């Protein structure tokens, strides 16, 4: 049976001595999508990538990558994937150009020199192409690393924190590359610490905590899990209780008071609560309103809340 997922893992486990790095990772990535793996330091993101790219063997569980069994058909998996790891993996003793030519040759690309020149140009490395890669800045190495993964278009691309430490221009370059790839049908699995990155690129997010997937969903689904933050600022302290009453009626959530700013807030998952409706209800109740806002949660809120839940 061929799987309809580009990556499908069930109960993947990996131990390093005492450390139980993965405790049953279940992951399903649809073809042609970008899956963002979010998680705090040590959550197991890199371990997951190393397992799925055949660099490590799982202690338990199974996975199919591009329809091939990870353990039984590693060669077939390797033919379908490309990987850019968390740490640079190009040869510092070779120049950028020599690195790309070597990988082009190993991929049996016709015209390795032309392919290398093309990629150097695309990733803004033409000027430094003939210097040893060890003299590159961190961001340049990162770009060379990604270029080396794109010698031929992979079916599935794994990126472990591809933009950590990059300046905005380099970051955009990499984001554009990811978007171009998915437009051409490549599946991308990327880990990141930057929630904005996941928000920008990922169709689906898997929140990993303590070696397991704690939550999955699209960025907006995950945000909906948390709910929006509603805040009302009133003119004087006497009506604060009245305002809280309205808010309670509307959201059913425990209100929190800020007596310095004369404000009351609550969190709601009710997506029908719009700002006009909020203002109308408050006005009808005779609350002298100074300011009202409904702020959608950021992925940062999601990340902090959900990782805290797992830790508790």
């Amino acid at each position: 049976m061929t799987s309809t997922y580009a990556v499908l893992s069930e109960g993947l486990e990996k131990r390093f001595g005492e450390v139980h790095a993965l405790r049953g990772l279940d992951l399903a990535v649809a073809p042609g999508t970008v899956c963002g793996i979010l998680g705090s330091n040590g959550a197991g993101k890199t371990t997951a990538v190393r397992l799925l790219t055949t660099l490590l063997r799982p202690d338990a569980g199974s996975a199919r990558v591009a329809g091939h069994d990870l353990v039984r058909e590693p060669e077939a998996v390797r033919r379908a994937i490309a990987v850019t790891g968390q740490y640079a993996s190009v040869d510092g003793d070779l120049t950028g150009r020599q690195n790309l030519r070597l990988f082009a040759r190993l991929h049996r690309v016709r015209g390795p020199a032309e392919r290398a020149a093309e990629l150097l140009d695309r990733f803004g490395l033409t000027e430094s192409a003939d210097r040893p890669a060890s003299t590159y800045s961190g961001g340049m190495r990162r770009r060379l690393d990604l270029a080396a993964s794109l010698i031929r278009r992979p079916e599935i691309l794994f990126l472990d924190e591809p933009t950590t430490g990059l300046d905005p221009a380099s970051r955009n370059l990499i984001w554009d590359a990811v978007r171009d790839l998915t437009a051409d049908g490549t599946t991308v699995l990327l880990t990141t610490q930057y929630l904005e990155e996941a928000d920008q690129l990922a169709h689906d997010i898997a929140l990993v905590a303590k070696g397991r997937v704690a939550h999955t969903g699209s960025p907006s689904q995950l945000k909906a899990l948390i709910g929006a933050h509603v805040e009302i600022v009133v003119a004087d302290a006497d009506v604060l209780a009245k305002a809280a009453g309205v808010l309670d009626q509307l959201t059913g959530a425990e209100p929190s008071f800020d007596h310095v700013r004369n404000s009351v807030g609550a969190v709601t998952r009710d997506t029908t609560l719009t700002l006009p409706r909020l203002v109308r209800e408050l006005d009808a109740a005779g609350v002298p309103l100074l300011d009202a806002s409904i702020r959608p949660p950021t992925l940062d809120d999601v990340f902090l809340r959900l990782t805290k839940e797992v830790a508790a």
Partner: protein
Amino acid sequence: MSMLAHDGTAMLGRQLQRIRNTPGLLILTQTMPITMLLFFGYVFGSALAMPGEEYRSFLVPGLLVATAANGIMTGMFQAAQDVHRGVTDRLRTLPINRAAVPLGQSVADVMVTAAGMVPFLLVGLAVGWRVEKSPLQAVGALGLLLLFRFATTWIGIFLGLLTRSEEAAGQLGGATFILPLLSNAYIPTEGLPGWLRTLAEWNPISAVTTALRDLFGNAPVPEGAAWPVAHPIAGSLMWCAVLLAVFAPLAVRRYAHGEG
């Protein structure tokens, strides 16, 4: 097989490119045996019973083999460096033959060793060393030397992939310096006490050194030596075969499996 040849050649090209980009280390490793030849040849030579020139002729094959044995250190260092820099990981995610990477490394190393022999032998000629037998036998001697280097490099690659540490490679480099001291590379083993002599003569370096001295015609095969030294060519071939049969599969397996 053609896959192995293709990938191995690409990896070989990479090693040679690396050396061309950073020639400093190569120059250093090549000057070492020349320095030792001059130092040992003139300082020790004057203290030994052997006449100076005769000792220097005796020393040239010994230093060639001692230098070849450094393949353990070089192989280990390069393999550990690749692991450390993440290059090994990237290569391991490519659909290439599992033996191509270590094979490319070892063949490149043999080629560099062959090139490095030229200046050393020129200095040897300058201090009195000669090929006393036929050119064919001399070529055989050099072939045996390179085969030995090929074998020691595989030991190094295995150890480098095992320890994954450049520091460990550096430490072990110091330790491999001992190996030729426990052989007939610098001194004849005939004068050693019984058990030490046996130990030294079962050192692979002794068999290869004796074979070289025999094929170049620098010194006769010693009387009453242990089997590998008494039959130096067969002994050398036996050692190379054993080392390769053990360490080449271990290295390839280690490369294929990574850290677990």
